């Protein structure tokens, strides 16, 4: 065996052992990689400049437009959690479902799928769901295994339910692979667009939600103690329409606004995430104003909602563009009104912030948001150093050589590819996998007859499963980071196992029936 291969494998092994010692994951990945990198430099296997790339890699993460959505979605989740808005949302959703045993579980999957759909970033989604749902579920006497498994699985849904960052990156990589496959085989090739993958992922994603719900129904019947009926309604008066509108309708509207604006192509995920965070502040202010607000705060917040409506109305009926040759008087007045409404909106957000400040939740929510963001990005930095060194040892060439020697045509190569990606998903973040593995493995697979969209959806489902699989699934790390200390890691791991089974079922279904992934894109366009 070559020395490089031994060192690449040794780095993996050492990383596993070091991680088990319990030192922070991000620093362990980076530190082990650096030690093996320096060994490589000493032995003359790795040129030193590769290690010196780290600062520019860090700058790359700092400038990444797509990743800006991470802190904003984290803040949205933390603010909703601190102000009990999300608690209310889950409570009301579960009280509506309370007649059914395990209603809180269904509510979590549905609310979780909606949240997942609105972020599309596993780290942020899992953390948001853990902060919002886990304390409530544990308080209601849910089995911690079932609760954490449901949350982790619902969180990883963000990868497959559009709009998802993975799907955007995959679309780019698969489209390139498709063209290079066409060049090698001499045929023509169409472009695989982000829209194609969004449409292709919609059915499998919704079916996964269905599978999760079926699993929860079965659990509720077979093991009633694991998912008890919600006990709050014992003393409470029946839900009024106003209560439902306030605690369920408002946040749902926020989620739908965020999700809808991305799906309709109106806003980029980053822009939508800012709307989400601002909306979360407003909802939190509304929730806490009666107990902590001063006179005028509530009015200011309601004013912000009114301005929002007014702005929507004006923007859709009149042309408010400022940069043009001549502006008619009518538009001029409308622009002035819109400017005023914008100021009222921002004022409302500031009032909401003041209410939260007075409730002693503002600083702690922002601090917790900053901590979680730091945690996610330190992992990104550590993983990128790990990936740098792994590739410097030629790790991906060994993977490629392995793939080309597999018997069994498309299915054999596909099976091994999926397995390799699954294992790589433990250590490399999905951006690395998409940009390192897909360009290597996708062209041969497409030449062997795989449909690009089908292949991409299978890969996305596969990575989603990988992020859910103990001991190294990233979703589980994120969940561990945000879960209360009383929750045991082993319970988190055990809880994920049934959902891994459901994931594998879904992968088998899409593999067997490609039209699950390819039908909608062909209809859509």
């Amino acid at each position, binding site marked *: 065996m070559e020395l490089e291969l031994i060192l690449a494998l040794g780095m993996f092994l050492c990383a596993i052992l070091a991680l*088990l010692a319990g030192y922070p994951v991000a620093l362990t990945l980076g*530190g082990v990689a650096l030690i093996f990198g320096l060994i490589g430099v000493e032995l003359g296997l790795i040129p030193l400049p590769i290690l010196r790339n*780290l*600062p520019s890699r860090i700058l790359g993460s700092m400038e990444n437009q797509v990743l800006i959505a991470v*802190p904003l979605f984290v803040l949205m989740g933390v603010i909703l959690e601190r102000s009990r808005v999300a608690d209310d949302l889950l409570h009301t959703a579960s009280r509506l479902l309370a007649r059914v045993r395990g209603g809180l579980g269904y509510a979590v999957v549905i609310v979780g799928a909606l949240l997942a759909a609105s972020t599309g970033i596993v780290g942020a989604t899992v953390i948001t769901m853990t902060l919002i749902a886990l304390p409530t579920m544990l308080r209601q006497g849910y089995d911690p295994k079932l609760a954490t498994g449901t949350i982790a699985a619902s969180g990883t849904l963000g990868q497959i339910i559009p709009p998802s960052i993975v799907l955007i990156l995959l679309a780019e990589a698969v489209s390139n692979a498709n063209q290079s496959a066409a060049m090698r085989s001499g045929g023509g090739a169409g472009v695989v667009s982000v829209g194609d993958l969004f449409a292709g992922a919609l059915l499998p994603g919704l079916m996964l939600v269905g599978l999760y719900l079926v699993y929860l129904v079965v659990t509720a019947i077979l093991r009633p103690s694991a998912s008890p009926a919600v006990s709050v309604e014992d003393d409470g008066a029946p839900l009024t329409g106003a209560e439902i509108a306030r605690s369920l309708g408002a946040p749902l509207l926020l989620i739908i606004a965020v999700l809808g604006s991305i799906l309709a192509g109106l806003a980029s995920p980053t822009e939508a995430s*800012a709307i989400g965070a601002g909306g979360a502040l407003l909802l939190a202010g509304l929730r806490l104003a009666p107990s902590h607000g001063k006179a005028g705060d509530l009015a200011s917040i309601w004013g912000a909602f009114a301005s929002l409506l007014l702005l929507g109305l004006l923007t859709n009926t009149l042309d408010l563009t400022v940069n043009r040759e001549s502006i008619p008087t009518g538009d001029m007045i409308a622009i002035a009104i819109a400017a005023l409404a914008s100021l009222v909106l921002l004022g409302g957000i500031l009032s909401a912030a003041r209410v939260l400040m007075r409730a002693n939740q503002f600083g702690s929510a922002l*601090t917790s948001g900053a901590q979680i963001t*730091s945690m996610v990005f330190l992992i990104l930095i550590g993983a990128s150093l790990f990936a740098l060194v792994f590739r410097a040892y030629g790790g991906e060439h060994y993977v490629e050589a392995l793939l080309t020697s597999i018997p069994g045509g498309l299915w054999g190569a596909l099976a091994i590819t999926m397995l390799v990606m699954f294992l790589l998903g433990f250590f490399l973040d999905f951006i690395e996998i998409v940009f390192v593995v897909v360009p290597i493995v996708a062209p041969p697979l497409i030449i062997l007859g795989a449909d690009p969209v089908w292949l991409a959806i299978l890969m996305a489902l596969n990575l989603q499963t990988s992020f859910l699989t103990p*001991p190294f699934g990233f979703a589980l790390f994120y969940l561990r980071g945000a879960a209360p200390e009383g929750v045991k890691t082993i319970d988190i791991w055990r809880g994920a196992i049934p959902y891994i089974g459901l994931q594998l079922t879904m992968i088998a279904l899409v593999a067997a029936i490609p039209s699950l992934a390819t039908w909608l894109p062909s209809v859509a366009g």
Partner: protein
Amino acid sequence: METFVTVTGTGLRYAGYALLPLLVLPLLVLLLPKSLQRPADGLRWVLDRTSGLAMGFAVSAAFLIILIQLCAVLLRYVFGLSFSWLNDSVILTFAMIFMLGAAATLRDDGHVRVDILRNRFGPVTRSSIELVGAMAFIFPISILILYSGSGLIARTWIGLEPFNESDGLPIQFLFKTLVPVFAILMIGQGLSQALKAALIIRGQLAEDADRPDHGGAV
């Protein structure tokens, strides 16, 4: 400008070399716990407060990013306006959150661990792992970042590099300076964690001594 940057950079480098022996202080604490406890505690206090100060900026950036990105959205969708300096501000606040918040997150134990075995270790084992981790992982990574990023930072400072667009924010050089600042903060906090671990190993400090968190928003 160029001489100023070069002189400052050289001065900083020698200051860095001069401070390097501080990184072995945790090992000296292992040897002489009694006599070094006071200075170690004092240094930890300063380092923890420094991380807290940086976290204060990170927290402010977390609020600002919401407001700035919302303004950008309003301006673009309602009035059809877009400004590069607004987008640059978003990028700057975004990077500030985690580049300045990572050290305090380390202090408050906010970075994810695999804790499957960790809970079964005693305080001495846990602290030994912390000490080794700081010395073998945090210091080398941070020194690598400082060492290999110095050229990048010198170039951006010499030109006082602005962001790319003509109406962009004129402080790209400050944005890039977040990289060495991050590394220095991590070294400082790593040193604080290592000192704490050494004191715990020698029985001069209870493991959860400063557990009550360092005052939320700083």
